[in-house]
């Protein structure tokens, strides 16, 4: 699992590559710290290369979403595969995020 973070004018983008399963989540939560630090800006989560997600991965998404809500920023989720979109749907996440 890899996380590539890029920053531009008022936007932090994290590209998630690989399987976001339970062991991977415990590392990824640390790697997305820069996004939590800029929760007041626009946070983009690029999921084009995300192949799998477990509930612990969903937990990171929700943590970021809560931080943004608190700081007045917002979170955009891009490039969901149909399988992961299915998981988002089952868990009501589709309503929580701006999905692109």
């Amino acid at each position: 699992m890899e996380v590539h973070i890029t920053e531009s004018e008022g936007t932090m983008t994290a590209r998630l590559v690989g399987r976001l399963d339970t062991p991977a989540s415990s590392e990824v939560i640390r790697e997305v710290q820069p996004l939590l630090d800029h929760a007041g800006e626009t946070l983009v989560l690029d999921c084009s290369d995300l192949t799998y997600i477990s509930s612990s991965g969903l937990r990171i998404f929700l943590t970021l979403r809560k931080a943004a809500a608190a700081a007045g920023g917002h979170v955009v989720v891009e490039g969901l595969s149909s399988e992961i979109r299915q998981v988002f749907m089952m868990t009501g996440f589709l309503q929580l995020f701006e999905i692109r």
Partner: protein
Amino acid sequence: MLNRKRKHLKYAFQAIATVIVALATLEATFLIQYFFSRNTLYEEATRQAEEELEATNLHITDVLDQVETAVRNNVWPVRKTLAVPDSLWPLTRRIVECNPSVYGAAIALKEDYFPDKGRLFATYAYRSGDQIDTIHMGKASYGYPGKEWFIKPLEQNGGYWSEPYYDSGGGELLMTTYSIPVTDSDGNMAAVLTSDISLDWLTDMVGDVEGYPSAFSVLVSRTGQLMVCPAPAFVMRATVQEVAATLEDSTTVRDISLAMLAGERGSRQVMYDGEKQYVFYAPIDRAGWSMAIVVPHKEIYGDVKRVGFLVILLQVFGILLMSYILYVALRNQLRFREVSENKSRIDSELRVARNIQMSMLPTSFLTTPEHTEIDMSGVIVPAREVGGDLYDFYVRDGKLYFCIGDVSGKGVPASLVMSVTRSLFRSVSAHEKSPQRIVTSMNDSMADMNENNMFVTFFLGVLNLGNGHLWFCNAGHNPPVRTGPGTAALLDVVPNLPLGIVPGLQFQEQEIDLTCGEGLFLYTDGLTEAEDMDKVLFGEKQMLDNLLQSGAESADLQVKSMLSSVMAHVRGTDPNDDLTMLSIRFMNASPLAGLDRHLSLRNDINDIPRLHEYMQGISEEADLDHPFAMSLNLALEEAVSNVMLYAYPAGTEGQVDIDTHIREDHIEFSVSDSGVPFDPTAKVDPNLELDVEERPVGGLGIYLVKRIMDSVSYARKDGKNILTMIKKR
């Protein structure tokens, strides 16, 4: 191309060489014949001339002999008459009378022989018209004692022929005189007896030479006087030497005349009258004359020249004809060669094409030990070198993908469409499991590029090697035969349309289950429509009967038995269509009784990747599709990580056991641990309606398990927590 040109040149040279050799042979033959003929002609001319010369010689000698004899016979009467001088008159007259060839005769006495008759006495009798006149020749003015005819016989004491002369007395007659001395009874020379003869007959006798119209003769006296010659003006008025001096080739003529005067015999070539002439000459011994016959060169060789000209004309015509025939033959030969070269090139290309085509089709029928669940065999017999039939198959993810097809038409165009069809089958089925979708996709591709309106009847099947389930889709192909021990029946198929006709067409998919020993026999219409010599088809009935017999046999035997039946049927005919057969038998005796897999993990989330591998293996084995497999994986991970995180007190080691049972209609997971009793199903579902601020970050795992699986149940058994999750397929 260059090579062919070289070959053409080679043949052209050979042909020209043949013509040249033929020409040379002909010419050599002709020349030999020509010179041989010339020689023969020359010899013939020589022989003719010599014959003529000899004949003339004999003739003249004969005439002269007669005269000589006549004169000699009178020597004795004259001698007796010498005693009575006046009696010499009637004697002279009688000599003329009795010898028709004698023109005149004389008896001239030596001077003063008869003293009373004067010094000179000579009687002369001669023909004058029909009469014979006599005159006295003793006039002093004539002076006969000085004449050659009188002196010579006396001197020689023998007969003497005078030089020819023109008689000036009795008309323009060419004459010659034979004189002989007469002695008296005492043996003294007394007189000379003479006879004159006309030589006019010489001109008639000497002259013509048979076969040579322009030839002429020349007769000369011993002094060279011309006695007979083509120019009358010269006769007796010129010598041959004088005339020779005026001729163009005077030297040669003079040499000839000298030889003639010397009494020689021979022949010479001379230029006369502007052309080449041959002169043949020989002496006339009795008179001391010489005769020559002059034959123009062109008359000797005229024929041979004319014949030679004709021969050359014929040869030229023959050579032209031969050249033309050779040319035509050569051209035809070259054309034939070119055609047969082209044909053999095409033949060999077709053989190569056939090899390529055959190498596309799988020939090893999955006989390896890893495929004991399948028994296959097949054959293609193309009607021409390359054909439009195809079959293909391969195994992917525990399924056998197979197809059979028949392209409309035969030969090279059909074979090209056949390769395209086979490639499409491979590429489309590589990432598609549904026969209906594979066939639809292939149809779209082929209909798009089908400019030549070729179509393919096609049957495609996907056989699950685990359970014998068969999905298939037919595209206008002959229905396959469902085979089994003691059964053989046409499969009930939805016909659909062949591939390549209507783009966007939706094909219908069908499915059946094969039990162990059952199978499909696929074929093209080359089998059922194979005709015997009476145009009777092999037919479906014969095919089904055959399969009924061999239904329990191996696929290889089924195909071989069918092939030998159909070959016996068509014996003696040319195959009119490609013939393809493919037999597939499902031989798995224990179809998916179940797939049971076990996995033990430590209570450490870092073991989770092992769980993924485990699930990956199962989904491949059971051929689960990707989204389905992923959702199962998620449910299992949530159940397992729940145990890892909460079942055992922190810092204690524990174990999680996972058992998977895949059945035909469902999948069952059971996750068990020896931790503290805990029923995850008892947990209340999270409220998904809450705002983001109010939503707890956890509690989604078990909820996901429940959402994904059809049933989730908890049991505490033998000190273990057992979570059982079932998902229908």
